């Protein structure tokens, strides 16, 4: 059985930014066999956990998309300037490969369209709907 890791990230005090965290929480509730990590931002420390998995989903709120989106990603070979507060999913894969010589067989970024980032612990209606659609996309993949 494949070892699946779901990473939901975002700020739970910034409205729609928390969509990834909410989605990961829902997925793990329905599929307790899945490893779920909820964080504010992606950090280099996650590389080890990623390297130990077969499939990884990075679920995040995105303001530059209008539809739920799931895309396959590869390690970023051209290296970005890493920041202490954030590292991209592609760079994290690169880090896993470099440090632990292992990559998940597949890695996906699941984008949830988001628009409201003011102080709030609730998702906007549109993002809430999109979040559930994204959860369904991931679940569909898991049942294939």
């Amino acid at each position: 059985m494949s070892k699946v890791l779901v990473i939901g990230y975002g700020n739970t005090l910034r409205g729609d930014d928390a969509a990834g965290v909410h989605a990961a929480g829902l997925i793990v509730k329905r599929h307790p066999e899945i490893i779920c990590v909820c964080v504010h931002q992606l950090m280099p420390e996650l590389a080890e956990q990623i390297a130990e998995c077969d499939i990884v989903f990075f679920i995040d709120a995105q303001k530059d998309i209008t539809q739920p989106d799931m895309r396959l990603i590869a390690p970023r070979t051209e290296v970005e300037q890493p920041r202490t507060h954030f590292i991209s999913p592609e760079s994290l894969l690169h880090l896993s490969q470099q440090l632990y010589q292992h990559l998940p067989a597949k890695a996906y970024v699941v984008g949830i369209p988001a628009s409201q980032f003011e102080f709030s612990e609730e998702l906007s209606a549109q993002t809430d709907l999109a979040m559930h659609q994204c959860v369904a996309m991931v679940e569909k993949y898991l049942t294939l």
Partner: protein
Amino acid sequence: MSKTITLSPVTRIEGHAKITIQLDDNNDVIDARFHVNEFRGFEKFTEGRLLWEMPGITSRICGICPASHLLTSAKAGDDILAVEIPETAEKLRRLLTLAQWLQSHALSFFHLSAPDFLLGFDSNPATRNVFGLIAADKEFARRGIRLRKFGQEIIEILGSRRIHTPWTVPGGVREPLDPAKKEYMLGWIPEAKETVGLALDAVKKIHKKFAKEIPEFGNFRSLLVGLVSKDGGLEYYDGTLRIMDGNGNTIADKLDPKKYFEYFGEAVEPWSYLKFPYYKPFDYPKGMYRVGPLARVNICDYIETPLAEAERKVFKKLSGNIGVVNNSFYYHYARCIEMLFAVEKIEMLLNEPALLGTNIRSQASINRLEGVGCTEAPRGVLFHHYHVNKDGVIQKANLVIATAQNNIAMNRTVRQIAAHFIDGKKGKITEGILNRVEAGIRCYDPCLSCSTHALGQMPLHVELVSASGEVLDEVWR
């Protein structure tokens, strides 16, 4: 006609900043300023909030050292409730403080500064980062990341999440430690000790490699301020303030941190949002002082853990005859010594039966209308000072942050490095110079998010400005 060089934004520190370097008519560096151009204003918008909310709110100041704000805020709350917290709660808070030191210092040394040291100041900036470090020394980088993870895991175990955990509260802590988690944490200790040992070996090689450059990296006499324990040992959670001068003389000792405002003033400059705290008896700016690892390891009489104490004695030999290490470059060495202390002390605390007690919170209502909390955050001594009404509603808050306390010294460091390395006649800022100036600031591991209570990443902007105000060169990254 004088000229100014500006570096903006500064990279691999926490927050946004700009550096301007002013040249005189002869194109010599006459001044350099480290501008902090962020503002968020926690002190103002916390007015009207309840005391019990303050740890949770102020921990949001920073994503790197939220636990320090959490602890210091809770201690200010203890003062207002006028309670002595249970023994278990104090030990748990101490454990949290050390975990915070460990993860923050590991970030500073392995992620932010090691690329300069292992790859060189003049190496390609595109690869002078944690990825370049991996390419150069995979095992070293991997261990650094894991060491930070250890600190973060302790924080997560205690507070149920890595950052912004609401676990510490006025009167104690919310939850006791799960005994099963104790063994897990102890299991990390051998690897953590080994990794810190590697860091210390690396630091000593760095001292040799950069022997010619080190004398220009913030090498000046200043006051050093920090907490020490009752008998003068290295302190991180409680204790009293000690002030040492640049000649190694203790000029003030056993000062009550709750009266910090009697000893330290806060100056402001129109060109920076970061305040300039100073030692009042010496006035501003002569009352410049440094806090953080360099100060702490200098001012203490001993460190209670054996390996760190042995390393402290080696550190002190760098001071020559005066008994105090004044060069800011040695912040890195002091930081590594503190990492060693943190690992050793975490092991000691985990083996104390009282850590697993269940009496963890003293309950009380508002008994004082004013309270001060003080701890040693990774970057130095941190004060939270609150005034409340009889219902515990905040009327006024003052936060004195470590990075701000190093502000005068950071400016002095930038000026020293700029004066040594910049050739104003060329009117250009080379990559190597840019990085050296940044590296001077990184010695202090400044957290501008904390010190201005602002949100941030840390890009760099540098300007070279002539005496007439003309920008001769400008670098952004």
